[in-house]
């Protein structure tokens, strides 16, 4: 985890969908892993419903999906360590950073706009 001030990576991936019910989260994480495997520095921002991806203890999806908890555990192996979480979404869901599966840094709206400004490429899922 790093503070937003030293983040000026190649790619920011914004994850805005909950883990189950669609393939958005999985396909967004796939893009993150591929970019990291290609040597790009990747940051992740969990925003809105996307913060639900970070709730620990999730199993496979009800629809025979593999689930994304295992993929999240692999992020560190791919050197994806700049993890940010939308602070207002945490509030809205009544969660704190201690409730999350990974150490993500809560960021306010101003910081989110700075994150978007300092990354070369933004992909939103």
């Amino acid at each position: 985890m790093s503070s937003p001030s030293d983040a000026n990576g190649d790619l920011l991936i914004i994850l805005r969908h909950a883990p189950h019910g669609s393939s958005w989260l999985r396909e967004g994480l796939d893009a993150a892993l591929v970019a990291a495997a290609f040597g790009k520095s990747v940051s992740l921002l969990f925003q809105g419903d996307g913060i639900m991806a970070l709730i620990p203890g999730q199993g496979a999806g009800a629809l025979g999906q593999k689930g994304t908890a295992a993929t999240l555990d692999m992020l560190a192996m791919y050197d994806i360590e700049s993890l940010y979480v939308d602070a207002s979404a945490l509030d809205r869901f009544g969660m704190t950073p201690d409730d999350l599966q990974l150490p993500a840094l809560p960021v306010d709206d101003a910081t989110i706009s700075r994150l978007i400004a300092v990354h070369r490429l933004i992909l939103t899922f």
Partner: protein
Amino acid sequence: MRYGLLVQGAPYSSQASHSALRFARALIARGHRLESVFFYHDGVYNAARLAAPPQDEPHLIDAWNGLNAEHGTQLQVCIAAALRRGLLDELESARHGKRGHAVESPFELTGLGQLIDLGHEVDRLVTFAP
């Protein structure tokens, strides 16, 4: 400027493909270059060669083909997202023991790495999602 587009919506289900096409034509008309369109998520359905919309509706798949023919825009389709959704080209169809194929040139099944490369090569990568 050099542009790339990322299309994540299926044709006719959402506005994403139609808007992407209009944007593509507009930027070319302004003298910019559209290097490539990358199809991901449900956007891979834009590569379905058997699409047969009613004749009084825009034929989006033909329109993508036209962009390639007239302007050399590459049409790249995420292979993992496409195979899951039954969009195989001749090679993948044979490899998986299937009959028939749904994707043909100029659409090209390719890896997500191409999207990352595209995003870093062009001046602007614009996403169209539902």
